[in-house]
């Protein structure tokens, strides 16, 4: 490209001049890379070819139902359920994390047991369990426990709607995961920060709020972003209790029209759009919380590289 001091670089070939002798430097041949690239290219070409030519995809039906009223209603429910379960899960998670780190043995054991139970049983099972709560407690009352008088009482079946069952099943499960994320974030902050906070005479809660939690956010935010993206997809579990969310809404259509694949594609495309938007939002939030960090001002990937990287890596990660 440029010629200076007898040293030149062209694409792949460098020429180094030592006095009169010129030595050509040829990069090593990477045969494996070429073979790998060829295999992947062929596979990709086949994927595109069959997407275009296989009539069973029925792209016309996909576009026909893409903005259908029933689908959009389901989409709204999916968004609402995701937002509410994440807010509930985050609040519960902070509470459980602080209980666990409090040093009070009763609090620690209570928090640990909660996390053990709700992280150790599948969200789907919990969801079905809450939906069938009436079998265990036909009536729910507010009053003095252990046989005292009740001030208020209602039928469990009327109270635990599909939406409430989904909120309980997914929200409690999420709370257990968020508790571990928040706890990990707090513990990831250097112990020297706590020394500095105490030596300056800050109160414990001042140090937590002003110094420790803002730094813990650096690891809490990316993990919470992953959880939110995961939750968006996990809300589809609520279709099992007939909650009218995105998956259930396409199911109600294909149960009548038998266009199963096109309608599942409708749902998938919507899920992809939503997870992509969430990933972009997450990058913005992370930039805000990485203030003062090395590399926050100049990531070598550049703006678009970071966005693409974030979308590609975050779209697929989720706990079991």
């Amino acid at each position: 490209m440029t010629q200076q001091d007898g040293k030149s670089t062209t694409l792949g070939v460098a020429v180094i001049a030592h006095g009169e002798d010129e030595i050509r430097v040829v990069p090593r041949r990477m045969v494996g890379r070429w073979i790998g690239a060829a295999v992947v290219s062929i596979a990709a070409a086949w994927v595109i070819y069959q997407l275009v030519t296989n009539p069973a995809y029925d792209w016309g039906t996909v576009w026909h139902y893409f903005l259908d009223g029933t689908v959009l209603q389901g989409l709204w429910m999916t968004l609402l359920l995701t937002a509410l379960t994440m807010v509930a899960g985050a609040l519960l998670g902070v509470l459980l994390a602080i209980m666990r780190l409090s040093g009070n043995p009763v609090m620690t054991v209570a928090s640990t047991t909660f996390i053990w139970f709700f992280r150790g049983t599948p969200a789907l099972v919990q969801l079905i369990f809450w939906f069938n709560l009436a079998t265990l407690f036909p009536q729910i009352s507010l009053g003095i426990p252990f046989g005292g008088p009740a001030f208020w009482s209602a039928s469990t079946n009327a109270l635990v709607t599909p939406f409430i069952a989904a909120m309980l099943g997914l929200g409690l499960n999420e709370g257990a995961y968020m508790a571990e994320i928040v706890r990990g974030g707090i513990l990831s902050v250097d112990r020297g920060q706590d020394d500095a906070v105490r030596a300056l005479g800050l109160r414990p809660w001042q140090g937590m709020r002003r110094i420790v939690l803002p730094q813990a956010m650096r690891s809490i935010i990316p993990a919470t972003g992953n959880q939110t993206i995961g939750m968006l997809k996990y809300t589809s579990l609520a279709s099992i209790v007939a909650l009218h969310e995105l998956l259930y809404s396409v199911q109600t259509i294909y149960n009548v029209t038998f266009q199963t694949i096109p309608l599942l594609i409708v749902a998938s495309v919507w899920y992809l759009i939503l997870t992509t938007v969430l990933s972009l939002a997450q990058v913005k939030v992370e930039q805000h919380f990485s203030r003062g960090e090395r590399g926050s001002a100049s990531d070598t990937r550049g703006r678009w590289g970071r966005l693409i990287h974030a979308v590609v890596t975050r779209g697929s990660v989720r706990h079991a």
Partner: protein
Amino acid sequence: MHENSRHASFLEARDLRKSFGSLEVLKGVSLEVARGEVACLLGPSGSGKSTLLRCINHLEVLDSGRITLDSELIGYEKHGEVLREISVRQLCQQRSMIGMVFQNFNLFPHMNVVENIIEAPRLVKGVSRQDSVDRAHELLAMVGLAEKADNYPRQLSGGQQQRVAIARALAMEPKLMLFDEPTSALDPELVGEVLTVMRMLAEQGMTMIVVTHEMAFAREVADTVVFMDDGLVVERGGPDEVLGSPRHERTRSFLARTVRR
């Protein structure tokens, strides 16, 4: 000891004992520091110097012994025959009178230099934003970093970070400054700038306790040098005495090793 007895002692530590698990780190250490005195603590690693320093502002809780600063008992109050641990509020009040500088600086990485300095005065002492910012700029000028006010700690060299940490501690107007190996994490060429600031503080009459391996600094600036080994004070006196003609064999062999280094 003889040198100190002429002053009313400002900081007084009596027979301090502290164990971590089965390891006894302080085995009955006493220390007196007069107002305006600079005391350097020397000794091999693991001798209990840092623990002693951390006990003085109650970052570590003592097993036994007591510490008074300006006649005020640190961490406890006396109720008849018992010592009762003071409230968190009172403890924070006491700690705000004692500045501390750490080996690893421990600046707040998510705040810029000025925010680092004004955080504690604003939260603990309720100083107004404007007053605390003005004071921060004065302190930064004093440590030679006036132009770094808006930088984040990551953008500063180790020596600069440590000078900001000193300014942060001074912003609380402490009666006593504790330095825990303030130059040990620095590249050799950055040690001088931090020692210069500390020397200036000493000249201004700040009472200082410095854990250090910088013999030249101790010789030049310290009023008292305390040599510790294995959880005990082995020897104390003026720098010429302890560093020039040590009486104890352990002091001699330690000095021989460090001077060669």
